[in-house]
């Protein structure tokens, strides 16, 4: 049994309890055992963390990461990915199933989860393919996958173009209690697209990806939510057009949730500059107007979650001609400071930050974390919100270096990442 941990005098932020005040937090036997706003718990016999200058948050949850395991372990593997997550303050990550081979069987889920238990980093939640081999046609065995420990189903990286199949997915995922996540992109509109279609793609002579690639798919997906009445989560929303559709769907009372990624909130297609491959991702960086709209969506609560879409690639895929470069950027270690900056710029409360990075993803995935209520898992992120530093991607725990934020001045450092009552990262 690990020693109890007392986090003393911290600013404890827990949106689930509408709590933001000084308190002691006691973690015992892998659970939150006490929250004491009088700050009078004794540290005797406990690992003491003095948190007077720090924020104490429910453990951060990144519901969209690619850990490349199995198949592309040279880009990332379970170990490096979960350690990078812990270094970024994440206590739980949801790994996407578009590995090689794709994760579409219960045995793979069991194997990944049991391997992850031996890694002293973030907790792994594994999503399973919605369809066999991500083929977009035959459903995988959701009940079997769920029983093996799968946390969600998704064909991330691909959309299911066949509407009848997607309708079945929504219905059956609901029966089995697995949240379905949609990579909403009608790619036939821009099969060779490289970056957002607009002035920048025209200037650089690159094939464009109009925002309609996303919004057409979002419209179809929302239509199926309306038809079935079953919930759907939409991944990595990048455009105003899609966001407007989601806003209307929510106003209608449809069970739709969505996420966006920090890079869409801080970069635009102009930042592709002279063919910067670390600014190439799918969906692509869009215009300043889209960015503004996404920021507003965060403030209004139309966007539920900030997730990284952490997508490691080695120099073999990145240090090549732009049109041949792989889509995707890493983000586990920059998500928290960027979300803090966003909060500062949009005047969002610390509770909102915890909601975006912890409570909402926990609710969508049906996880017990996301809050520091007594009896919940002892997953905690302690941060120093004032610490300033220059982000150097070479120090990343990820195996890959494809960050669009290398060299950025960031504020907000991880002090401790605690998973299941064990400290897995110390800043």
């Amino acid at each position, binding site marked *: 049994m690990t020693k109890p941990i007392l986090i003393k005098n911290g600013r404890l932020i827990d949106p689930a309890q509408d709590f933001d005040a000084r308190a002691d937090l006691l973690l015992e036997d892998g659970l939150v055992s006490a929250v004491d706003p009088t700050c009078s718990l004794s540290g005797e016999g406990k690992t003491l963390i003095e948190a007077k200058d720090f924020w104490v948050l429910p453990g951060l949850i990144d519901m969209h990461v690619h850990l490349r395991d199995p198949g592309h372990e040279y880009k990332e593997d379970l170990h490096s990915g979960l350690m990078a997550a812990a270094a970024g303050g994440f206590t739980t990550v949801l790994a996407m199933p578009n590995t090689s081979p794709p994760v579409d069987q219960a045995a793979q889920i069991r194997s990944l989860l049991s391997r992850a238990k031996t890694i002293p980093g973030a907790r792994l939640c594994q999503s399973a393919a919605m369809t066999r081999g991500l083929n977009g046609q035959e459903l995988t065995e959701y009940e079997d996958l769920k029983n093996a420990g799968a946390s969600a189903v998704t064909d991330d990286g691909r959309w299911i173009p066949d509407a009848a199949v997607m309708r079945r997915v929504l219905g059956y995922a609901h029966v089995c209690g697995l949240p379905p996540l949609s990579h909403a992109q009608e790619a036939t509109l821009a099969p060779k697209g490289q970056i957002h279609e607009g002035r920048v793609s*025209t200037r650089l*002579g690159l094939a464009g990806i109009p925002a309609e690639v996303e919004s057409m798919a979002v419209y179809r997906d929302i239509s199926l939510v309306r038809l079935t009445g079953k919930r759907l989560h939409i991944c990595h929303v990048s455009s105003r057009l899609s966001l407007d559709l989601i806003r209307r769907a929510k106003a209608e009372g449809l069970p739709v949730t969505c996420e966006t990624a920090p890079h869409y909130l801080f970069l635009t297609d102009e930042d592709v500059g002279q063919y910067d491959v670390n600014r190439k991702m799918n969906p692509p960086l869009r215009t300043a107007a889209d960015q503004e709209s996404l920021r507003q969506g965060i403030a209004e609560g139309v966007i539920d979650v900030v997730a990284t879409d952490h997508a490691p690639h080695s120099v073999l895929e990145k240090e*090549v*001609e732009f049109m041949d470069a792989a889509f995707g950027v890493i983000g586990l270690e920059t998500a928290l400071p960027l979300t803090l900056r966003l909060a500062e710029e949009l005047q969002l409360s610390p509770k909102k930050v915890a909601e975006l990075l912890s409570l909402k993803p926990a609710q969508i995935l049906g996880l017990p974390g996301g809050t520091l209520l007594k009896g919940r898992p002892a997953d905690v992120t302690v941060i120093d919100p004032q610490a300033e530093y220059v982000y150097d991607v070479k120090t990343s725990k990820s195996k890959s270096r494809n960050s669009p934020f290398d060299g950025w001045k960031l504020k907000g450092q991880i002090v401790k990442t605690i998973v299941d009552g064990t400290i897995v990262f110390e800043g």
Partner: protein
Amino acid sequence: MAYEHLIWPKDLIDLDQFGSEHLLAILDLAENFKEVSEREIKKVPTLRGKLVVLFFHENSTRTRLSFEVAAKRLSADTIALSASGSSMAKGETLLDTARNIMAMNPDALVIRHSASGAPSFLGERLACPVLNAGDGAHAHPTQALLDLMTIREKKGRVDGLKVAIIGDIAHSRVARSNMIGLRTLGASVSVCGPPAMMVPGLAEEYGVEVFERPEPALEGADAVIMLRIQLERQSGQLFPGAREYASVYGLNDRRLSLAKPDCLLLHPGPVNQGVELTPEVYDCPASVILEQVTNGVAVRMALLYLLVDNAERRNPEQASEK
């Protein structure tokens, strides 16, 4: 000469690197070099002992020949690498190729590549000047400069002229570089092509007028640049076919008569006769297509000279690999 007082970049990537003063200085220098090509002994010792690598990752006959002639007339040594004849065909990456070229210690690299951005990729990694001989759908600055030179030679100026560019704008690096160059020198530009061969933001990005049909684009034009249609790639996909293309967008006598009586006809070549142009138009007095080829050599001589000379004058520390 004027060029000596200007600051030049290490690489030639596209014409957006230059203001009008630079462009005019290049054209002036090219005119001087053109005179070399008219001599009995068509050679000057300017780049003697220099090595120019011609790296053509994408097929090209005209541009490669033109650069080769230009380098030879400046007395430089040349080696030509092509994708099929080099280790690129064996799966070598562009980065590896760059490092290998670097090891040969060349004085200039001329690159043609199917990927937009490949010249800047190499330019950032090589110590020597990199000259873009056409990259993907991005830029073809030497082609645009030879078009500017031809227009200026025939009209005495570029400023205030009206130039129409017609054809596959979306996939055309020639169109992009020409739009930049022509606008920088004060011409007004109208562009026209089939909807599937157009891209958004042309008016905002380049300050050109965009037309659906060629007739209004041609009206009152001082020069028209017809772009090559890649029949092999586009037939039946972006457009119903060559015959249909000729009937809607092809330049014939009737359409040419909408332009000014002394309108020039340019084409980057090779021409699909009967598609972009009727054979009658190709041979008409307005056509300066072969003069473009002559001027191409002169422009490339000027740029090779400028950038190699410029590299020598730069801080030698900058010559080491980044």
